[in-house]
């Protein structure tokens, strides 16, 4: 339980605070519309008024929050400055996308409540106009302000209309429909199935948020929700005068006809700050994209992996960071994230890109195509880089014992770490805080080993030379194989080097038994904080997280860090 607090404590706390603020705002604004000023409005609308205004306040709060987790540059800045104080707080910023989604769900929920309440409001407003009987208070109230069209209460001004027409002829109604449609389209195109298969649809449709925010700001400009003015409250006290509505304004009555006005729009005050921050974020991205990036080398690896080695003036990275790459000749609007596979000590930076979709395929064709002879450097496409942005892997060197788990192409951030380890420990002979690294690579096919196996081979050789073979312990697992391959492995089982990777460490087959691995590490390193870093599928993440929680007893704590795009 103690480790659950270490792993998840801050997240749970943040979520509780956020839910608490939502609940507080909801109740606060619900009660705010139960005061005297809104008495006559409530005569027409009943509790539906409060039910509409309370989620509106929560919507203001959540729309303010939703832009913040996607300001990547701001977050990296924050992360850098918090890291000195608290590693846990810095890790919290890695969960920005999860928070963005939570806030989005809350926005959808409050929108639903808000709309349902307003459906009732429209209906009640219409009822008040249709029951044209002078002995009914709602009708008398609706008739107020017919002359000057300023001090009215009921936004539906005649009985020859219907709620649908009213909705399409008021600012609030029009903007409401527009932004709700934008929200629904954004949500349906952000479903995991669509997002994972067709990133382009998700990305382009998501830009409807611009319409959403513009509509949101203008939504309250019509001042359609009206309460009694302060001046009018002095001449017509609702508690007293409500029953005498037939005598309002007549000689001898001490109740004047009440006057109403709408609240000034409030939403812009909530969202203008984050909107400005987001605009700055996009400007930073545009500025960075115009800095010249030169491709120094293109390498095509088996298993459809493309390696790009690049240089940019003033580029500085840390281990395990990622960048966004844009190729204008392929697509002007798309930026795709890739982990950097080079170490900070190298004079270039590189990314290994797996060719899976439209964009990566087009990038491959632009960089390599079908040419077998070397390309001229000027023929290579121009690229733009945004970043680097920091994620969990930056923390690796702050733990004494480290477990790195990468699945397939997910091994890329660890390529950067291992290279950096090699440079630091072996070339510069620096003392690193990390004493032991356990590296696990799970791979479904043998060709994928090639580019990484080269790195491991050179590391293996260097470590043997310096006599430091016990610093890095690596395990490669082949999770799928064909029968013909299996026969080959069986025959070469006794060979000194592994038949697949050529490394001294033999490849293991199937999936690792995590329970055994964790128990093993636990027994070898009592009393330490071990960091577990994963880049891979969510299912693996769940099982590792469970193992971390169950194996963290009194002396050893396993802290789980997941990196996922």
């Amino acid at each position, binding site marked *: 339980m103690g480790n659950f607090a270490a792993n998840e404590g801050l997240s749970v706390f943040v979520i509780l605070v956020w839910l608490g603020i939502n609940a507080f705002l909801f109740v606060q604004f619900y009660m705010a519309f139960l005061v005297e000023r809104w008495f006559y409005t409530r005569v027409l609308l009943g509790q539906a008024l409060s039910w509409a205004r309370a989620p509106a306040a929560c919507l203001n709060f959540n729309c303010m929050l939703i832009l913040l987790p996607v300001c990547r540059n701001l977050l990296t800045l924050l992360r850098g400055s918090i890291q000195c104080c608290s590693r846990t707080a810095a890790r919290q910023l890695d969960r920005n996308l999860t928070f963005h989604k939570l806030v989005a769900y809350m926005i959808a929920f409050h929108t639903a409540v808000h*709309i349902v309440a307003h*459906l009732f409001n429209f209906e009640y407003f219409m009822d008040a106009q249709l029951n044209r009987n002078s002995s009914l208070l709602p009708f008398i109230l609706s008739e107020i302000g017919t002359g000057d069209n300023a001090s009215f209460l009921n936004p539906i001004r005649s009985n020859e209309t219907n709620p*649908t027409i009213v909705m399409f002829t008021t600012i609030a109604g029009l903007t409401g*429909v527009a932004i709700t449609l934008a929200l*629904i389209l954004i949500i*349906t195109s952000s479903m995991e*199935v*669509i997002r994972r*298969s*067709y990133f382009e649809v998700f990305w382009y449709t998501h830009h409807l948020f611009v319409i959403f925010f513009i509509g949101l700001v203008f939504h309250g400009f019509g001042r359609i929700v009206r309460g009694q003015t302060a001046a009018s409250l002095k001449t017509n006290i609702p508690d007293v005068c409500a029953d005498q509505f037939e005598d309002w304004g007549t000689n001898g009555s001490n109740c004047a006809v009440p006057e109403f006005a709408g609240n000034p729009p409030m939403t812009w005050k909530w969202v203008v700050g984050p909107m400005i921050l987001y605009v700055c974020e996009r400007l930073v991205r545009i500025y960075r994209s115009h800095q010249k990036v030169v491709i120094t080398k293109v390498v095509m690896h088996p298993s459809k992996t493309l390696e790009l080695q690049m240089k940019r003036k003033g580029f500085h990275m840390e281990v395990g960071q990622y960048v966004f790459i844009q190729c204008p000749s392929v697509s002007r609007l798309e930026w795709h994230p890739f982990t950097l596979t080079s170490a900070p000590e190298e004079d270039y930076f590189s990314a290994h890109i797996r060719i899976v979709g439209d964009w990566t395929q087009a990038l491959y064709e632009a960089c390599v195509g079908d040419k077998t002879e070397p390309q001229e450097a000027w023929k290579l496409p121009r690229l733009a880089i945004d970043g680097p942005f920091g994620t969990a892997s930056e923390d690796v060197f702050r733990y004494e014992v480290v477990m790195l788990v990468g699945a397939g192409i997910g091994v890329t951030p660890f390529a950067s770490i291992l290279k950096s380890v090699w440079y630091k420990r072996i070339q510069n002979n620096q003392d690193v805080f990390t004493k032991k690294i356990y590296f696990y690579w799970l791979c479904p096919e043998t060709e994928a080993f090639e580019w990484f196996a080269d790195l491991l081979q050179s590391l293996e050789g260097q470590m043997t030379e310096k006599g430091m073979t016990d610093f890095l312990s690596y395990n490669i697992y082949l999770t799928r194989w064909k029968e013909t391959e299996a026969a080959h492995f069986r025959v070469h089982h006794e060979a000194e080097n592994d038949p697949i990777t050529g490394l001294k460490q033999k490849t293991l087959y199937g999936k690792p038994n995590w329970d055994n691995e964790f128990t093993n590490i636990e027994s070898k390193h009592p009393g330490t904080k071990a960091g577990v870093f994963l880049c891979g599928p969510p299912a693996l993440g769940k099982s590792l997280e469970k193992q971390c929680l169950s194996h963290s007893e009194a002396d050893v704590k396993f802290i789980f860090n997941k990196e996922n795009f």
Partner: protein
Amino acid sequence: MGKIEWAMWANEQALASGLILLTGGIVGVAGQFRGWQFAAYAVAAGVFVCLLEYPRSKRSKGTSVERSGQYCFTVCVKAFGPLTRNYYVRAFLHAAICVPGGFMLATVLGCVCLGIASLIYLVAAIRGEHWEPILPRKEVRKPITESIKNPPQNPPPRPPAEIRRKRVDDLEGAAYDNPISVTDNE
């Protein structure tokens, strides 16, 4: 956006529209709004659209992810054959279903969303997509080749235990010949 299957997005949009239509209809009926008959229609239409759209189609390329428990819906939808397979039919069906929703405020949102879903289905149909049911894969077992004979029914004949017991002190004398030949059936 070359490889996208528009029908996948249309399916998500239509399912969402069905739910919105249903919710609007329930509000209209429960609140006894004017024009509640349209709301009652919307409830029925919403349920119908949800049932029709719940089973996901099999993707022509790549792995399909089923919605939980969609198998029975798949069977029902499959039973209508070309009517549900063809996306032109779906596009026009959704366009027709959504129209009565436009007559009442509570169902207008569902109407517009379903209209958008209908448009996306039209795009999918023009691009030649169609609905394929996701059915559980039947395991095809390799036929047992003739070289494998029937396994033996009885254990091989052996002399009694005293003779079989290993006599470590006299290994030469412990060897024996099997009384019955232990070769394959001819």
